[in-house]
């Protein structure tokens, strides 16, 4: 094998590797394996005025605007889950309810999520964009209501093990 032939073979091999490298991420996306993180903060809202929770400092204004009848907001729990289309992700809430989330695909940049509150026998099918906060509220808890602040984000690295944050 001449030098030129070896060089040509080497170049072909390099090109093949580069093609695989370039196409692999697109292939994963096309295969519907996007990897999606769901971040949930469980917040207790009360009508009594309370000191702002530092953990909620950056969304305090949004909370006060969206839940105008409530003046106290305290984060009870912060969770981060990796959503899957195979198995629903379950989240135990402080009021004994459990919330389940299941990724059901992507449609025009909106992620289809099946959201279930099992004990309340409520199922919702929703579509949400990445990096947009949305809320579920109204379940009674501790003299106030529970607010689930939810947020979808792309996968960076696998989330740490669940650790309830008071």
């Amino acid at each position: 094998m001449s030098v030129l032939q070896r060089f040509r073979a080497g170049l072909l091999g390099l090109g093949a590797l580069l093609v695989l490298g370039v196409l692999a991420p697109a292939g994963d996306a096309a295969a519907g394996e996007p990897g999606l993180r769901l971040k949930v903060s469980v917040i207790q809202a009360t009508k009594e005025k309370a000191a702002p929770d530092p953990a909620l400092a950056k969304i305090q204004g949004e909370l006060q605007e969206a839940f105008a009848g409530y003046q106290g907001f305290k984060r009870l729990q912060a969770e981060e889950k990796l959503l899957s289309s195979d198995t629903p992700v379950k989240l135990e809430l402080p009021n004994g309810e459990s919330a389940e989330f299941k990724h059901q695909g992507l449609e025009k940049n909106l992620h289809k999520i099946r959201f279930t509150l099992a004990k309340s026998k409520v199922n919702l099918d929703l579509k949400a964009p990445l990096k947009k906060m949305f809320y579920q509220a109204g379940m009674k808890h501790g003299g106030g209501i529970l607010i689930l602040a939810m947020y979808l984000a792309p996968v960076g690295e696998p989330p740490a093990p669940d650790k309830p944050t008071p």
Partner: protein
Amino acid sequence: MNDQDQEKLSLFLDGALAPEDAAEVARLVATDPEWKAAHRALKLSGEMMRAPVEQAARSANFDGLWAGIEGRLPAPERAPSLLERLRAFLTPPVLVGLAAAAAAAAYVATRPAPTPAPASPSPGLAATPRIAPAPESALAAAPADASEPVVIEGIESEGSKTVLVSQPVEPGGTTVIWLLDAPDAAGDGAAAPTTDDDPI
């Protein structure tokens, strides 16, 4: 004169005889009429043969002789030009490889730098130290428009809960899915918003 004598005479004219033999032949040519006649005839024939050759040699034109010889010689192997070498090298498989390399280079050059997850509107969650910034991925490659509202496609409530959805009036507003208890016997709607704090 025999044949040997003729040969000897020819050698004599060519100056190829030994001195003793040449002296003997010279004596015979001078003294013997037959040898003298043969010598004269042979000398004339030699001159007749040389004259046309010399004349042809004088009239011959040697200009361009070497060029003609070179022209009839087989052409030596010529080193291929750069273009010819490129043509030989850039075969379709190599072109595919080069195109792939170019595509990869373009992808690497134009790939946007990884961006961390925004500090807002998820500050409460971002405050959790275990949450790492999300790098660009296949998901993020499709730009998510965070101003798009959350769409509720379907609601199923088989219990006593009432589901209300508060959608934002303005782009970028907040979507709230309210889950309201049915009023109990005391008429306490519990978490249900009052007239003042009706979310919708």
